[in-house]
């Protein structure tokens, strides 16, 4: 009898813990999609992978599709049709595929007219195959997909030669870090940069050091006053692209920007 009671208490305790662990929100850590296409990947596979990236992990829809922050891609924009139809006409002599690819890996190279700031997008975070999948998806929006398995294979080889990951820039100079990490693509500092987010001038006297750090690590945690409409547009993964040292350098530097 005693033994049964002991058993009951033990099993009961275990059962309660198991129940609690199952009652809370179930969060899995999913593996980031890694596209490992072979060179005989089909067009449909590329487009499908690109579509998933576009509306998911790549975060394109935080800017595109709202009309105000960036030109529409999936629907017509400025009377020019969808991106698949207009991509070939953007730069004289440059075919659609090259243009789209350039737009992604080197967003500062071409800036669409219409009063937009240059697009801020860190192609480096994505593999070559992922970029090509995005291009294929965009081409598919009204155009002909010309991305091939050979493009993907070549990109994969380039990736293997220079693997991604690690910090964007090697420097510990605050300005270098900010330029290399596109901070100045959205923030102004002493006349340099763009005006999407709050200016860095005087930021040290506006908000605490702690909050500066948090704003970089987790931009969504607190939204700058007057920027509610832009909540979510500062990329959440910027801190991952910094070394711990660089993050501290940046925080110190910004905290030092008094009025």
């Amino acid at each position: 009898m005693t033994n049964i009671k002991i058993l009951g208490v033990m099993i009961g305790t275990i059962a309660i813990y198991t129940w609690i662990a199952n009652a809370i929100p179930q969060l899995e850590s999913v593996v980031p999609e890694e596209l490992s296409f072979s060179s005989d990947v089909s067009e449909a596979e590329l487009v499908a992978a690109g579509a998933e990236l576009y509306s998911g992990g790549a975060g394109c829809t935080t800017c595109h599709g709202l009309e105000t922050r960036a030109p529409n891609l999936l629907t017509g924009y400025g009377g020019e049709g969808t991106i698949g139809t207009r991509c070939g006409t953007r730069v004289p002599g440059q075919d659609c595929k090259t243009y789209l690819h350039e737009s992604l890996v080197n967003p500062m190279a071409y800036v669409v007219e219409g009063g937009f700031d240059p697009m801020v997008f860190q192609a480096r975070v994505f593999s070559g195959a992922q970029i090509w999948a995005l291009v294929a998806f965009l081409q598919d929006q009204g155009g002909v997909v010309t991305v091939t398995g050979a493009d993907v294979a070549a990109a994969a080889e380039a990736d293997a030669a220079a693997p991604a990951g690690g910090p964007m820039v090697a420097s510990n100079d605050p300005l270098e870090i900010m330029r290399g990490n596109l901070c100045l693509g959205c923030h102004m500092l002493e006349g340099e940069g763009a005006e999407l987010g709050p200016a860095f001038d005087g930021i040290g006297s506006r908000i605490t050091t702690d909050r500066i750090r948090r704003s970089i690590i987790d931009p969504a945690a607190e939204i700058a006053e007057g920027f509610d409409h832009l909540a979510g547009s500062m990329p959440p993964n910027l801190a991952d692209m910094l070394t711990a040292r660089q993050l501290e350098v940046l925080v110190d530097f910004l905290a030092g920007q008094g009025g």
Partner: protein
Amino acid sequence: MLKRSRGRWFWMRASLPVAIVVAIGLIAIAMEPLAAQGYTPREYGDFPIIGSRAAIWIAAQLHLFFAAFVLGVPMFAVVAEAIGIFSSDDRYDKLAKEFTRLLLVSYSATAMWGAVLVFGLITLYPGLWGYLSEIFAPSMWVYVGIFFFESFTLYLYYYGWDRWKKGRAKWGHWGLGILLNLWGTAVMLIANSWLTYMMSPPAEVTPDTAPGMVQFWSAFANATWMPINIHRFIANIVFGGAIVGAYAAFRFLSAKTDEERAHYDWMGYIGNFIAISALIVLPFAGYWLGREIYEFNQQMGTTMMGGFMSWLWVVQAFLIAVLFLAGNYYLWIGMGRIPGAERFMPYTKWMLLVLLIGAAVWATPRNMIANRAEITAMGGQFHPFLGALGVMSAKNTAVNFMILTTFLSFLLYRRANKKAVVSWEKRGTTIQGALFVIAAAVVLFYGVYGYFVPNIVRIGFSVYQVLAVITAIVLVIVIDMLMMRGAKSRGEIRWGEMPERSQYALFILAVTFTWLMGLMGFARSGIRQHWHVFEVLRDTSVDAATPALGYASIVISVCVLIFLSMVSFIFWVGGLAEKPVISGVGGGATGSAPVARDQEI
């Protein structure tokens, strides 16, 4: 006759782990030439039904449970033996021997699960195994060697107990106990280096670094190695104490005589005492470990405390609250068998209140850093209530209060049946009270002030809080020892007169701690996410995603159940083989042990 058969037992038990270890060594050597012939081993194997991940998970966790037990128990066996020597109190010597007997039988279980784990790794994760063994080969050989010595030291220690009982020989015997601990710790340090390497490989190691090129020492002494060594070392003491407590509780409940009951009541008290005293230190070690993880890699720290694991810490806090509550509850009930304790009983409800509030604060999650999918799953960026309490300041404050309260429980327990004879008793008690109040005030002050200062300053505050608490504890103990010199007894502790429900607190303590270990094992391994070696060697198996807590809890529960059944079996077998050693604790109310001795620890 009986002697002979026990001898055979001995050699069987002695040779089993050794045989296993030798077999592993041979297999490792046999695999070597295969690789040299240009044969590429496959990356992953399959395990039927539950899958490779669960299989290796269970093997590793069970190995760890037993390993933690055989690491923790020798520590207090040796301490108990020393107390026995110094106080010439035979009870402690017998207790130490009984601890060691539990150890003996658990030792082969450790080795068996170790073998299951290694074979599991070789057959299911050959790629990872190859990678790790290429870096760590020398330490693996040393590990095997130490294991060998450890086994034999243990057998000498146990079976030599009665032979080397007197004079210089006794000291030699005690030296064996120390040696046993040294081997055990060395084994743990080595194994920890492998698993911490997977978590925090040195910065110069990249996916392109061939394992043969990794510097052994930088891999061995990696960023989280020492913090995990310390955290584990302490956790293993708690674990050992908790399991011993449960063993005693089991024996207590099935005891036939008052004498037996008195002995196992006392043993249960000591198990609980060890578990709770070490538990008090564990949060400090934990915060240090957490900080090192943050420092090693911000992203990993964020994943750990904020990302998909944020709820794990809520469950952890709940389990720890249960530990504190069960430990204190046991003490409070225990006061019932101490004459004079009645005068403290009214305080227990306030202590309970502090513990409950502390637990609630601790369980409030810190503001969670989460991605969009997680936010939707959680229903908001912040925990719906008490957001501000969720930050570190509040947690540190809460846990420090819980520690102070638990210490107070011990103090009252110690004090219960004593009546000081020193002239300054009143003043002494007032000073003690003042120390408590000061410590609590310091903790509270920095806890509140923490909200108004930047992070980096706040981390420093937790050091002041800890220092205040530790200083108070040390001073109060010193004063207490001086004050209780030659204290008069208000009556003997009536060992054995313990209501049965108190024993269930000991079971809950053991089960909870075991489960907590399983949970934290999952945390450690889960923060690597889809990496075998963080950001170096990717997990490309079908099980690469890290499961949610619900699934994890089921695996953990299975592990805990297997462990408890095996331990019960082992203890039961141990009980069959030998008559329980009954010490000279007085049985029931007729006990004759002097008060001062009852509370040596």
